């Protein structure tokens, strides 16, 4: 205790003296950033150790910290309101940030667009892929990944692991990005056994721990024995699933440490690839593309290492499908396929590859998914 106190007093004195020095020189700490450095700002909508969406981005940010001449500044738990506009402005004004990564989907319109107009020299890179040349400023870019393929691979391991032939999905909102993941998960499982069904529960919010736990319990009560999710922080789903003895497939980031025995694999973002490339391009002065997409092949997404519960047969099919996806011609959504209300989605021979823009307005759940989008 006493040692702690001494240490804190010393650091207190040190920073006080430092501040006094700065004040005497008439300089605030704002001008710390050297002109030669590129300051990059990251803004997250939740805590950056959430085992999920924000952690995936924070891991990407951590990967570029080691690049020389790069200074990374970060802010977590910034709401999609005037807050994020002010956080961006603060990074520009106080830190001379020239490249910003406001990572939440809801930051784009109107917040990033408003700031981009006022700060034409700053570049804004947004995760979600909404940029279009005719509508949006040139200093805004967007990037996203085909993570549906990751959920398809999750589905294969789930299909092998389930005994009840019932798998479950805890989803935030019935929007296209989420629906594609739900459908891909089931189709992956059905590639193992066409009798498998997937129960989906929508919680209605991106981060609502209580409902997420309730959803997992409800799924387990119905006999579901493999669970995955698409919520901002999968931590609660994984921990509750483990306590209900379900196998688990991760999402956003690697959650294997939460349930090492039950974790099969997970669909993870690999933002380090994207961020490194963009930083290198910015440093070199070459233009950064305004619209960036990629999947497993481009290294935008990756799979968690397969867990001990994955069988040999499961592993073989997983690796075979992964190799197929890496070739780039694979389609999870292909005919003949109906939605769960009986409407035809794709006829025999029709298929939607991961890059197909039609998938971005998905509004259906495929046959075999139990649940409704409204």
């Amino acid at each position, binding site marked *: 205790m006493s040692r*702690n106190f001494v*240490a*804190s*007093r010393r*650091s*207190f004195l*040190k*920073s*006080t003296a*430092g*501040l006094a020095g700065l004040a005497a020189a008439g300089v*605030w*700490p*704002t001008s710390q950033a050297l002109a030669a450095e590129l300051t990059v700002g990251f803004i997250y909508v939740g*805590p950056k150790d959430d085992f999920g969406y924000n952690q995936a981005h924070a891991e990407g940010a951590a990967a570029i910290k080691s690049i020389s001449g790069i200074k990374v*500044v*970060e*802010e*977590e*738990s*910034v*709401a*999609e*309101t*005037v*807050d994020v*506009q*002010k*956080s961006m*402005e*603060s*990074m520009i*004004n*106080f*830190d001379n940030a020239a490249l910003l990564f406001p990572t939440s*989907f*809801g930051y784009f*319109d*109107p917040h990033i667009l408003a700031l981009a107009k*006022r700060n034409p020299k700053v570049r804004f890179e947004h995760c*979600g892929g909404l940029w279009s040349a005719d509508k949006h400023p040139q200093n805004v870019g967007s990037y996203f990944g085909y993570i549906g393929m990751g959920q398809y691979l999750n589905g294969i391991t789930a299909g092998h692991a389930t005994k009840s032939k019932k798998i479950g999905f805890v989803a935030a*909102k*019935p*929007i*296209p*990005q989420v629906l594609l993941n739900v459908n891909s998960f089931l189709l992956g499982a059905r590639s193992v056994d066409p009798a498998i069904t997937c129960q989906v529960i929508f919680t*209605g*919010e991106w981060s609502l721990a209580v409902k997420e736990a309730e959803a997992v319990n409800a799924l387990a009560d119905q006999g579901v024995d493999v669970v995955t999710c698409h919520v901002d922080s999968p931590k609660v789903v994984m921990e509750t699933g483990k306590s209900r003895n379900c196998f688990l497939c991760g999402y956003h980031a690697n959650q294997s440490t939460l349930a090492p025995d039950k974790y099969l694999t997970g669909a993870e973002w690999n933002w380090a690839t994207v961020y490194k490339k963009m930083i290198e391009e910015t440093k070199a002065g070459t233009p950064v593309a305004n619209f960036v997409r990629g999947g497993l092949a481009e290294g935008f997404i990756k799979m968690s290492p397969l867990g001990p519960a994955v069988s040999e047969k499961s592993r073989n099919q997983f690796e075979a499908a992964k190799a197929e996806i890496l070739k780039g011609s694979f389609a999870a959504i292909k005919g003949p396929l109906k939605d769960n209300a009986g409407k035809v989605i794709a006829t025999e021979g029709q298929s939607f590859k991961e890059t197909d823009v039609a998938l*971005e*307005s998905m509004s259906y759940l495929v046959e075999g998914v139990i649940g409704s989008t*409204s």
Partner: protein
Amino acid sequence: MTDQAISAPVALIEATGWKAQLARRAEPIVIVLVALATGLLLFGLFLMALGKSPIAFYSYVYQAGFGSWFSWQNTLSRAAPLLLAALCVALPARLGLLIIGGEGAIALGGVAAGALGAMLAGTPSFVGLPIMALGGAMAGAIWIGAVGAMRYLRGVNETISSLLMAYIGIAVMNHLIEGPLRDPKSLNKPSTAPLEEALRIGDMPGSDVHWGLFVGVVACIIGWVLIERTTWGFGARIAGGNYRAAEIQGLPVGWFIIGFTAFGGACAGLAGMIEVAAVHGSANASLAAGYGYTGILVAFLARQSPLAIIPFAMLLAGLEASSGLVQRRMALPDATVLVLQGAVFITILLSEAFYGRFRVFMPEKWGKP
């Protein structure tokens, strides 16, 4: 007894002089400032225990919240919704009602404004904006007014019911923006149709602070006049002091309860409308950003006085504005500023115990042993 009878006139003279007036008015200001300073001091000790410098911390807070015109704009932008959200707590509080569900009224006010704005596409600003404002205020008034009505007519606890109504309000908002009111083009973030440029609230000249701040300040002044300078406000304060006595005096207590809760709700609904028209450009789930809850904090710090809401909203907004810089410069988590808010909140609540304890603020006791 005789002693008192003799000294009373002297005290009366002293108690009405300018010194006495000043002493009475100084009491809440001095007590709140001392409590505030104590809270900041305690938090400073907390920081030192973590090995961080409180002086650096407070200089960052000053720099990012109040140190420059940029910082002031940052603070004022954040304060705008807090003013109206705090009124939703402070006005009913004068009747002794503790309303903590302003968040629901903000959400519904925003949805009403978003829906009306989509319908009013093509109308000029001076027609469309007042209708949207009225719609937003009405939605909030009905929502919180219903809490007051349940309280008066059925004796339902207004604190619990307003909180539960907030959950319902947010759920209704989500249903509407993801269902009937959804713009089909808003794929991954369900929203109402974007408002036309004419139906948006712009920034005040020479700043990037929108007009919502002005509306909030005006609403606080109106709230103060209503409470302190009208017979309704006087009646409401009596009812807040003693409900039975007010009823026996023939005051329309029921109308006060429903009227003040509805007025508070209208303020919160208007805050939602302003968020939609000035910030988001459409109604979506970002409306439930917690302003309703921060408003409770502001109202309590202001001791439910509509005028005091203005500086306290700015104080809290300034603390929030500094959260980012503190995170970036001192490697402290974002919850740091929440801890500070908590420390200040607790010390100010505890300071309530010191009212009426110090002779210096009580002219009627001056000169007495």
